[in-house]
């Protein structure tokens, strides 16, 4: 260690000029690292389109029955006392087909309500016969108008509805086991113990 001149001030101009950019770079580095690790864990998504629905009540809508289930409306979601998932799907959507096994595995732990988006009722019914039906209730959004009310930009999209019909979480990508374990289950635990 070098011995310092006691008369020399510790905070010289030279040190400040060196330190300020270094500190700035460190702050930026930590920020970017947080964003990147958030993207990997799924807690930060820069492509997330509709965050505005979060923590708001479900929109006004009424859906007719979609075989083999019974349709539902805003009041049914507002009357909920436990959290459920609302999933928009379509028989013409390949990612929805890929998502079905995950939903089938989830249905015993969390109730799922389905909305067939811009789909012929007979095609949606056949799709559910083929892939299995994880949904307790099923509505048909034939012209996609209810989808617009919910602010969806495609299928599949999933919303977590808390008690009282408040939208608590949203995913615009197919549900994966990882997402369920890392995001959905902790959220559910939080909703059950307010």
């Amino acid at each position, binding site marked *: 260690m070098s011995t310092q001149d006691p008369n020399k001030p510790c905070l010289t101009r030279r040190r400040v000029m060196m330190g300020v950019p270094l500190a700035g770079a460190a702050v930026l580095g930590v920020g970017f690292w947080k964003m990147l690790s958030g993207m990997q864990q799924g807690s930060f998504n820069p492509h997330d*389109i509709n*965050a505005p629905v979060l923590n708001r009540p479900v*929109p006004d809508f009424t859906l007719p029955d979609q075989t083999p289930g019974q349709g539902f409306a805003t009041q049914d979601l507002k009357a909920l006392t436990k959290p459920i998932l609302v999933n928009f799907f379509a028989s013409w959507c390949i990612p929805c087909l890929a998502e079905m096994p995950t939903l089938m595995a989830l249905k015993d732990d969390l109730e799922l309500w389905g909305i067939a988006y811009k789909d012929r009722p007979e095609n949606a019914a056949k799709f559910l016969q083929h892939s299995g039906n994880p949904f307790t209730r099923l509505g048909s959004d034939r012209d*996609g*108008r209810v989808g*617009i009310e*919910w602010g969806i*930009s*495609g299928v599949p999209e999933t919303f977590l509805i808390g008690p009282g019909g408040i939208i608590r979480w949203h995913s615009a990508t197919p549900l994966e086991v990882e997402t369920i374990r890392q995001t959905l289950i902790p959220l559910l635990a939080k909703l059950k113990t307010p």
Partner: protein
Amino acid sequence: MSHSTGQTPRTRLRRIVTALVLGLSVFLAPALVLAVDDPSEMLPDTKQEARAEAIGSQLRCLVCQNESIEDSSAGLARDLRRVVREHVAKGETDHQIMDWMVARYGNFIRLSPPLSVGTILLWSMPVLALLLGLGLAFFSYRRRAATPVAPPPLSEEEKARLAKLTKE
């Protein structure tokens, strides 16, 4: 043609201008063509239709993300075009229709972001950074000019030497 030799300079000029206008219109046409696939989508009232197109060209197609809903032929864009036209026909203001869209899809649906504290800060950042830099440069320059490097005072020895030299 037998007429080609009898052209006056004036008709030739007119032909060149016509050709230029036609040629340019080939390049301009795609900008004017909107993706309204089906004429039945359009409102019968041309004024209302123009308004609907103006609103739609400010709304992002969320499927393609870099096109307006008027330019896109995606299914969702078509549905949103229909929604805009319904609201226009109902007599809602542009502002009301924009708010309706933003309530469902967030500010991301607006192709031109609104003025807010965040966007004002974002857009004024180059000017702010320039002013900050100029200010720093100005103050450091002034401080340097105000404290000129004064030579240390002469010691007794030097004074004596100087006196001796000036005497000679």
